[in-house]
């Protein structure tokens, strides 16, 4: 079945070999699986997948040998490229004894090698929408005068994004880093997808992995049972964007039970401000447990204006509030911030509490504010 899928991807799995040193790696336990990829009628090459000793995929790489041609002269470029399992370019290194040169055959300086990494790491590069003819004056390695019009950037900005004397090399290599092989890598990784890989992706620090895995474990808002814990970890994780994404993708049911709501409150306390706002907005359509309602009631006056408003809105959306929650709210009517207390009073009024202690506090508040 696996080999069938690979065929569909127009790839051919060629060999699986243990290597001692491959493409700059020295780890003895890395295995390599090679996939033949025909990009078009004239270009084909091996995409290599590194696996650990148990056969788990680690990353992709290619030993690239490509010509970089000017008018009448081509020079061979040898370089090793590395991608993560979803085809996101990560880094490059040079095969032993190989170097990169500029148009005048001068070798790259250390800073040129570093700049090349920055250039290749930039997915939204000016190279994305350009052809070589747009970029340089034909037959030279000089930036074309009209490149600013094509890119919308100033010539100065463009110069920052290329290496002087190696514009063609930068362009050729960037196109490889973000080329057609990327999709093939994703397809290969699909064939390795199992619960273990999804767990590994969800708890990784690679947001590409996390988004990719989330799409697979959250369907129509429902989180597959074995991954609930992982999703919690994404929501309480350090990357605010994946956290917010996970929060938005999960359905309301995920947060309906008391235990999960208690966990969410803990996550709220530790979250950054924008995520706290996202959590409060998420809760608006979720019935609150007694415990959470009470905690929110207690927090409402300790928060800033925006959060207090959202919290009191949340409580206002609940059909009933427990006596304890109402008591917590009533106890806060003596807060000096009248914006807060006015909202609390309105909320209490809406719930028409029968408790004498509460009605007394409300009466006192009303009297002192008239």
């Amino acid at each position, binding site marked *: 079945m696996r080999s069938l899928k690979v065929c569909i991807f127009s790839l051919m799995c060629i060999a699986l070999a243990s290597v001692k040193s491959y493409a700059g790696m020295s780890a003895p336990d890395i295995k390599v699986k090679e996939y033949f990829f025909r990009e078009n009628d004239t270009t084909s090459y091996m995409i290599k997948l590194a696996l650990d000793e148990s056969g788990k995929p680690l990353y992709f790489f290619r030993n690239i040998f490509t010509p970089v041609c000017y008018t009448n002269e081509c020079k061979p470029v040898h370089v090793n490229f590395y991608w993560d399992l979803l085809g996101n370019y990560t880094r490059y290194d040079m095969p032993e004894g190989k170097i990169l040169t500029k148009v005048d055959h001068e070798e790259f300086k250390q800073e040129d090698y570093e700049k090349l990494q920055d250039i290749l790491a930039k997915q939204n590069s000016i190279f994305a929408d350009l052809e070589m003819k747009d970029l340089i004056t034909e037959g030279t390695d000089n930036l074309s005068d009209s490149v600013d*019009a094509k890119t919308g950037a100033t010539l*100065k900005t463009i110069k920052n994004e290329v290496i002087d004397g190696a514009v063609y090399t930068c362009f050729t290599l960037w196109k490889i880093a973000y080329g057609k092989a990327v999709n093939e890598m994703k397809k290969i990784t699909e064939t390795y997808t199992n619960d273990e890989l999804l767990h590994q992706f969800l708890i990784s620090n690679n947001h590409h992995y996390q988004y990719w895995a989330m799409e697979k474990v959250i369907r129509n808002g429902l989180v597959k049972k074995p991954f609930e814990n992982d999703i919690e970890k994404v929501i309480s994780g350090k*990357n605010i*964007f994946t956290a917010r994404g996970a929060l938005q993708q999960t359905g309301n049911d995920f947060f309906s039970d008391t235990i999960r709501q208690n966990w969410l409150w803990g996550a709220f306390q530790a979250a950054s*401000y*924008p995520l706290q706002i996202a959590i409060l907005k998420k809760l608006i359509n979720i019935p609150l447990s007694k415990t959470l309602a009470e905690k929110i009631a207690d927090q409402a006056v300790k*928060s*800033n204006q925006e959060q207090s408003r959202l919290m009191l809105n949340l409580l206002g959306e609940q059909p009933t509030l427990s006596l304890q929650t109402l008591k917590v709210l009533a106890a806060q009517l003596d807060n000096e911030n009248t914006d807060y207390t006015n909202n609390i009073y309105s909320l209490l009024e809406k719930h028409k509490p029968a408790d004498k202690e509460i009605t007394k506090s409300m009466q006192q508040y009303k009297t002192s504010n008239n």
Partner: protein
Amino acid sequence: MKINTLLLLLILISIRLSAQNHVFVETESFEDKGGWVTDQQSFVVMGSSYLMAHGMGRPVKDATTTVRFPKVGKYHVWVRTKDWAPFPKGPGKFQVSIDGNPIKQVFGESGSDEWKWYDAGEADIKSDQVKLAMKDLTGFNGRCDAILFTDSPKFTPPNKLEELTAFRKKLLNLTDTPSSAGKFDMVVVGGGIAGTCAAISASRSGLKVALIQDRPVLGGNNSSEIRVHLMGDVDKNHYPKLGRIVREMDNGDPGNGNPDAKEYGDARKISIVKGEKNISLFLNTHVYKVEKQNDIITAVIGRNIGTNQELRFEGSFFTDCTGDGTLAYLAGAEFRMGRESKAETGESLAAEKADDFTLGTSNLWASLEKDSISSFPETPWALQFSDEYHIDKCKADWEWETGFGNFNTITQAEQIRDHNLRAIYGNWSYLKNHKKEKYAKSELAWVAYIGGKRESRRIIGDHILNQMDIQEGKFYPDGSVTATWTIDLHFPDPKNSKYFEGQEFFAGTKHIKVAPYTIPYRCLYSKNIQNMFMAGRNISTTHVAFGSTRVMRTCGMMGEVVGFAASLAAKYKTTPRGVYEHHLPELVAVLKGETLAPQP
């Protein structure tokens, strides 16, 4: 009987009021501002300037002043401030001290971003003269508008704009008849590149000119306060004479946001203006009031952004080079803000529906690499970034921009600037704390606290320049300034929108190349205010055409044309429109640099 009781009560209250002693201190009038800076950008919504501790995360030196009291005794103290980044609590913390004794309360962290008076408790004033100080605690833009001492314990100072403005006016002893700054042939409001060039051009044409600028420097977006480089060509002009004054203003191209302030030549610009015998320069003066007779402006009133003293400027002609079209707005000139629809203008680049979308405002910044490692605090109150999304740059360029229709360029200038600051500090904090290998030795060298605005009101003239005028290269008989910049209409960068939807701070653009074209003179004077010219981004264009005319060398040349036109208007005692209708050949001759035919 009831009426009598009420009357008695009112008399008693007024006696009580008149018995009150208020000592009102505008912070911008502090004698020694220490490291605090004066911000007048929100004058239109606050009726005042304020002081701000802009230290880029390092506490600034105390601001101090001497306050005189009518009598010693107990006073109630009120401090007018805000929490500029209440997410949930902002960083702009400061304390106030009286004769070295700090009031315990820390200001600027209330969680509310409304400007209001905060009760600072009671102070025992033991001498008729005390030293008042504001101590910045963080360097993160704490701000204070005013401090009030009152011996009436129950008095609460007003927060509503109208009442507050009246209260200020009374306590600042401002009258309806400010002292005269003089009578001028031409009053230019706004000392950016357009205004400065207009003033110089008019002055060299023999007019007596007042140049009024609301900052301590000239040059506007090209000053060291904002640091945008000059764009638009001056070497492709239909009338080569234009651009001479712009060249004088040009200090070379240091790029956008260069960390070296001197590159922008503030002092040189001021010295050029001071060298003009016909120009009276009024820096630090914000024009907020206009006097009119029917549709003719007779005078403008400006308030000093530091001393709060007011001046009245009378003039024959007035030129709006404010960028915001402030003068036009005050005078009731027709103006437009936002985008027109395709149906309205017939422009292919216009929006489908008219809306409030404008280009944004930039607060540029730059860092410098130092010899040693430095730290920068975490900034939970700022925008939050992660490895997934941050801007991996050591300085800003034009893309750092906020306010694409989601904020009003004029009335929300403070919120726009603050949003820019939250983006800058949040991103910088991320780089310093999570990308140490690259940024450990970098330090913020400069962050603009004055917003560099792109788009605001466009004043309607006798002609509204549009996309077709530009792309078809129409040459009208009154074609004057040659413009060369692309139609450069910014929009939120799509990736930035994905991560900060509705809170974008990073822009993209698409340059539509144009062949050099000319801007008709009729775009440079108001349609309905008879004696008002305009130059700069606020001239009469559509939103789309503005995308090309808005760059500063082009704006400067508009100023040059206005100066020439004003001299003809003065010579023939006519209006700016009169110059177009009756003296256009002579204006064109001036633009051509032709000398007069032999005179009898």
